[in-house]
């Protein structure tokens, strides 16, 4: 099939796209807290922290594409932390995971990112 050289992407490239998706969803969550932050002081902090985290994830995704090892390490840590929190919260009877959307957002995408990051590392080792 005809392809330009620019379309030859790796697992890290796909992982970075998924991280951008996660960062965008975090950004939306942070922005959505703003109306509530008007009357709930605690949400001012949570909303701001979430927006900053989203910005950090955009930055990590960018550096992952550039092959920075520290970005890879930070993302693995964040994704595993996220999956662990989801697993713990799903044990509580609070309906954290109900339906396909939370399964995709909280389980499928973080798992896919971890798998892709692992694949990217093995690709890099093979290349070395």
């Amino acid at each position, binding site marked *: *099939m*005809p*392809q*330009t050289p*620019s*379309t*030859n*992407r*790796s*697992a890290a*490239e*796909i992982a*970075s*796209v*998924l991280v*951008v*998706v996660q*960062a*965008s*969803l*975090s*950004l*939306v*969550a*942070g*922005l*959505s*807290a703003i*109306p*509530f932050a008007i*009357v*709930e*002081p*605690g*949400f001012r*902090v*949570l*909303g701001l*922290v*979430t927006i900053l*985290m989203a910005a950090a994830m*955009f930055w990590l995704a960018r550096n992952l594409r550039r092959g920075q090892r520290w970005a890879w390490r930070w993302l693995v840590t964040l994704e595993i932390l996220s999956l662990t929190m989801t697993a713990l*919260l799903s044990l509580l*009877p*609070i*309906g*954290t995971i*109900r*339906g*396909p*959307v*939370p399964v*995709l*957002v*909280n389980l499928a*995408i973080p798992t896919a990112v971890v798998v892709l990051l692992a694949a990217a590392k093995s690709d890099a080792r093979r290349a070395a």
Partner: protein
Amino acid sequence: MYDIALDHAGAIGAALITLVFAFAFVFGLRFLAARRVAWAACITHVYEAAPSITKLAAALMLLSGGIHLALVPGHEGTTGVVFLVDGLGFVVLAVGAFLTTWWRRPAVLWLAATILAYLVWVIAGWETPDQIGIACKLIELVALGLLMRLANPTRRTWPRRLWRAIAFPLMACVTTLGIWVGGLAHPDALHAHAGALLQPVAAVATPKQQAAAAQLLADTRASIARYQDPAAAIAAGFKPGPVSKADPLRHFQNSANANVILDPNRPQALVYAQTPHGLQLIGAMFQMQRAGQWGPDPGGPLTQWHQHEGICFSPFGIEFSFETPFWTCPIGSTSITTAPMLHVWIIDNGKNGPFAADLDKAVQRELTGRS
């Protein structure tokens, strides 16, 4: 807040079948190619030559196409035709990703148009946002993100780079906002207010149910009259909830009554209004133990239980917001669904009535000075 619409449930099966079919197709092609079947070897070569990002984008478009086509029988008129055209378009583009050089731009336009059309449909009230629709938009957003990464780097001028940096987050924000607006502007019959799901009940109360509801109100009013003074409630084991600037009502909960079911003498919580003159007892709250476990409703539609869904709850006080349609909450808070509850308002609750999920806005304003 977002459930799975009954006429959309089949889409989950369609999505799984599409994935299994796609894997089986690729496996079958490889099998035939290994046995030197010429056409299979040719198609396998084309498929293997494509980058992983193209394969994934094609798979996601195929998945979205399968979901749309599965929804055609449940949607009549224009919506059904749009789903059919959309589904076929995704299938054609998914196949075209391996056969053409020009597929990327039409695919980007098709994905963006599909997402925007969905927003138009939900905002207009022609479609109720549910988890299948939202999951489908998430799949399309991921596919869109992948296609945006396939853009030609030789044309990365600054305006293009800036646009590429903000386009995807902007699309995610617009999608979220649109689904939110649609859901809030056109709630279904079982959503009393944003985040409250009502117990399914009959439309009209029988005379017997009307009498039972009146009895429940009278018994509750008589029982909790002893707690007019909050100090008496505290002495009886009710613990005051935290003060919130957002909510002028305060719930005093008694964990000793957690296992009791709709006993007017042992409610799970008392509700006080924060008036300019101090706390005023305005009602009781009965609560079940688990989410989805609807309580007995002696008054039928008059005593309809409700549970709160899609709330981002923070352990740092009783602060909360609504989760996004993509089930995300601000960091430090988590999505929760409460166990079903039934309020019994012992004051005149205006047009909402004595068992409503919410205190009537006018009554609340009169009591607390806040709406």
